[in-house]
C-alpha cells in the first residue's frame, strides 16, 4: 500500500521546525525515524474523528510553530507554590532547565535525561495512533525520567513547572515517572504562560506505579487565552497500587487532557478528580479511560465543570471492565453548571463491562444555577456576584476537598479567587 502524501497543512506545520533539530532532545535516531515516517501516514484529527468531535484542532494545525530554546534567566518564584516546600523541575518552552530547577538530592530519587521511551510502545499499543504523540516523539524538546527507588517515601513533593515564554513556541516535553514497589510520591505539575504569548504545549507523561506504591498527582493548568495545552497521560498501576490525580483547570484558551489509566493488578485504587472553569471562548476537553483488567479494584471519577460566557466543555469518560475483572467497583460522575446561555457542555460517559460480578455506576448532569438558592442568598443581603460565587464554590468544594495537600489547595483556591471564580 502506498503511504499517504503529506498534506499541505502538515507540510506547513512541519517545515517550521526542521531547522531547529539540533536543539532537540537526543533521542535514539531509530525511534525518531520511526516517528517521522508515522507522521507521513497520519493527519490532524477533524471533528469527524469521534475522539475529537467537539474539539477543533485547526487553530493548532494552521499555525507555524517553532522550537524555541529560551536560555535566558527567568525568575520562577512567582510560579512556585507557597508553603509547598517542594523540589522543582522546570521546563521552559518544553526544554528542561536544570539551571532553574532545584533538586535537593532527595533520598531514593533520581532525575535523568533519557534517549528512549517506554511510553512509545504504550502509544503504539493504543489502536488509534495519534499524530500529536508521534510529533512529540519526532520533535521531542526534552525527555526526562524521574525514578523513585523501592521502599522510599519521598519526603518532599516534586513540582514540575512548565512555562512557555515565546510567541509560537511548540513545547514537547516527554516525562516518565516510575515509582517502584512500596514507595510513595507526591507530584505536582503546573502549566503557566508568560505575557500571554501564543504557544502550544504538547506534553506527554508516562507513569508506572509499582506494586504497593502510591502516587498523588495534582495537576494545575493555568495558561492564558492564547495558549494551547495538550496533556497525554498514560498511567500503569501494579497490584495494590494507589494512584490519585486531581486535574485543576483554572485557566487556558484550549486545553485537552487525555488520561489513560491501566489497572494492571489486583487491589488497586485509582481516583480521578477534576474541576474546570472555562469562560470567554475557552475550551476544556477531558478524555479519560480507565481500564480494569484484574479483579478487586476500585476506580472513582469525579469531574465537575462550571462554564461561563461562550466556553465549551467536553467530557468523555470511558471505563472498561475486562472479563477477568470481577468484583470491580467503578464509579464515574460528571456534573456541570452552565452560567450562560452560550456556554456548551458535551458529556459522554461510556461503560463497557465484560465481567458479571461488578458494581459500576455513572452519572452526568448539566444544569443551570439553582435560582431558588440564589434568591435565598440574596434575601439575606448577599450581592448577585457573591451569591453566585458562593454557589459555584459549593459546587466544586467536594473536588477541592480531594486535594489533600493544603499548600496546593490554598494555591488553587487563591488563583480561582484572583480570577473572581470563587467566593473568598
Amino acid at each position, binding site marked *: 500500500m502506498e503511504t499517504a502524501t503529506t498534506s499541505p497543512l502538515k507540510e506547513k506545520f512541519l517545515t517550521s521546525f526542521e531547522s531547529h533539530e539540533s536543539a532537540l532532545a537526543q533521542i535514539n535516531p531509530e525511534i525518531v525515524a520511526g516517528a517521522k515516517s508515522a507522521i507521513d501516514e497520519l493527519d490532524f484529527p477533524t471533528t469527524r474523528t469521534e475522539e475529537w468531535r467537539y474539539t477543533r484542532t485547526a487553530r493548532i494545525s494552521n499555525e507555524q510553530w517553532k522550537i524555541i530554546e529560551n536560555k535566558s534567566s527567568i525568575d520562577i518564584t512567582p510560579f512556585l507554590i507557597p508553603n509547598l516546600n517542594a523540589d522543582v523541575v522546570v521546563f521552559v518552552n518544553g526544554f528542561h532547565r536544570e539551571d532553574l530547577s532545584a533538586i535537593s538530592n532527595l533520598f531514593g530519587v533520581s532525575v535523568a535525561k533519557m534517549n528512549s521511551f517506554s511510553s512509545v510502545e504504550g502509544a503504539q499499543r493504543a489502536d488509534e495512533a495519534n499524530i500529536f504523540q508521534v510529533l512529540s516523539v519526532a520533535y521531542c524538546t526534552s525527555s526526562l525520567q524521574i525514578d523513585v527507588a523501592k521502599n522510599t517515601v519521598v519526603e518532599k513533593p516534586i513540582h514540575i513547572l512548565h512555562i512557555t515564554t515565546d510567541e509560537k513556541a511548540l513545547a514537547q516535553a516527554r516525562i516518565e515517572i516510575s515509582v517502584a514497589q512500596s514507595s510513595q510520591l507526591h507530584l505536582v505539575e503546573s502549566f503557566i504562560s508568560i505575557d500571554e504569548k501564543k504557544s502550544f504545549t504538547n506534553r506527554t507523561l508516562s507513569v508506572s506505579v509499582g506494586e504497593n506504591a502510591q502516587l498523588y498527582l495534582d495537576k494545575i493548568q493555568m495558561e492564558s487565552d492564547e495558549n494551547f495545552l495538550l496533556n497525554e497521560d498514560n498511567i500503569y498501576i501494579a497490584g495494590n497500587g494507589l494512584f490519585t490525580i486531581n486535574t485543576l483547570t483554572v485557566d487556558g484558551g484550549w486545553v485537552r487532557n487525555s488520561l489513560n489509566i491501566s489497572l494492571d493488578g489486583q487491589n488497586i485504587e485509582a481516583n480521578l478528580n477534576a474541576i474546570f472553569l472555562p469562560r470567554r471562548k475557552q475550551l476544556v476537553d477531558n478524555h479519560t479511560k480507565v481500564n480494569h483488567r484484574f479483579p478487586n479494584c476500585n476506580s472513582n471519577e469525579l469531574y465537575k465543570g462550571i462554564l461561563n460566557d461562550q466556553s465549551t466543555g467536553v467530557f468523555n469518560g470511558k471505563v472498561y471492565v475486562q472479563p477477568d475483572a470481577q468484583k470491580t467497583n467503578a464509579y464515574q460522575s460528571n456534573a456541570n453548571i452552565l452560567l450562560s446561555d452560550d456556554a456548551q457542555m458535551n458529556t459522554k460517559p461510556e461503560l463497557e463491562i465484560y465481567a458479571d460480578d461488578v458494581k459500576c455506576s455513572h452519572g452526568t448532569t448539566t444544569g443551570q444555577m*439553582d435560582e*431558588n*438558592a440564589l*434568591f*435565598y*442568598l*440574596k*434575601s*439575606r*443581603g*448577599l*450581592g*448577585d456576584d*457573591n*451569591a453566585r460565587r*458562593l*454557589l459555584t*464554590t*459549593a*459546587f466544586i*468544594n*467536594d473536588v477541592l476537598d480531594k486535594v489533600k495537600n493544603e499548600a496546593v489547595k490554598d494555591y488553587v483556591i487563591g488563583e480561582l479567587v484572583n480570577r473572581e471564580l470563587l*467566593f473568598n
Partner: protein
Amino acid sequence: MLSIKNIHAKIEEKEILRGLSLDVKPGEVHAIMGPNGSGKSTLAAVLAGREDYEVTEGTIQYIGKDVLDMAPEIRAREGMFLAFQYPVEIPGVSNMNFLKAAVGEIRKHNGLEPLSAKDFLKLVAEKSKLVELDGQLANRAVNEGFSGGEKKRNEIFQMAMLAPKLAILDETDSGLDIDALRIVANGVNALRTPERSFIVITHYQRLLEYIVPDFVHVLYKGRIVKSGGKELALELEEKGYDWIKEEVETANA
C-alpha cells in the same frame, strides 16, 4: 416603617394581589391570615423581591424608600428579612460562611466595620441559643438534611443574626410540632423590640397564641377584607373562613 398602598401583583399572567393596602409602624406585630390561595405567600414574595412576581399597580414604601425599586439584597441590607415558608437547602455552603458573608455585607452597607472572627462567633453562640440550635447545625451546610423544625429554627436564628428592622414570617408555623412551634415563637418573642416590626403570615391561629399580634388582617382574593385586634384570630379559629367569604361576596353582590 412600611406602607403598602393598593398593590396589584401577578405571576404568569394570573393576578394574585388585587389592591392590597397595609400600614405597619415600628414595633407593631401584624398577623396576616387567610384561606389557601388568598395571596399570603405572594405578599411575602413581593415584599422580599422575588422576580417571578410582577407588580402592576400600587406602591410599597419602607422607611421612606420605594421598595419596588430595590434589589432583594438591598432590601435585606436595609433591614428587611423574610423567614421562608420553605427554606432552601444549599449543599456545600456552610451556614457559617453564608452568615459571615451576609452579616458582612449588611454591616458594610450600613457603614459599619466588619465583625472580628471572635465577635462573630460570640454572636453565633448567643443567637443560636435563642432557638436552641446546637452548634453542630450551625456548622453544617445551609439547611441540608435539616428536619422541618430545624429549618424553621435556622430561619429565626438567621433573623437574630441579621437583626432586621422588619421581619416577615411566611407560614413559619406550618409543619411544626408543638415543641418546635414553641421554640420558634419564643425565639421571635425574644427579638421583639419597640422598634422592630413583624408581619406574621399564617393559616392557623395556633401560632398567634405564642406570638401575640397587635393587629390581625384577613386576606381574601388578594385584598385585606377585614382587620381587627388579636380577638379576630380567635373568631377565625372558631368559625373558619367561610363567614368572611360570605361577607365579601354579599358586599360585592
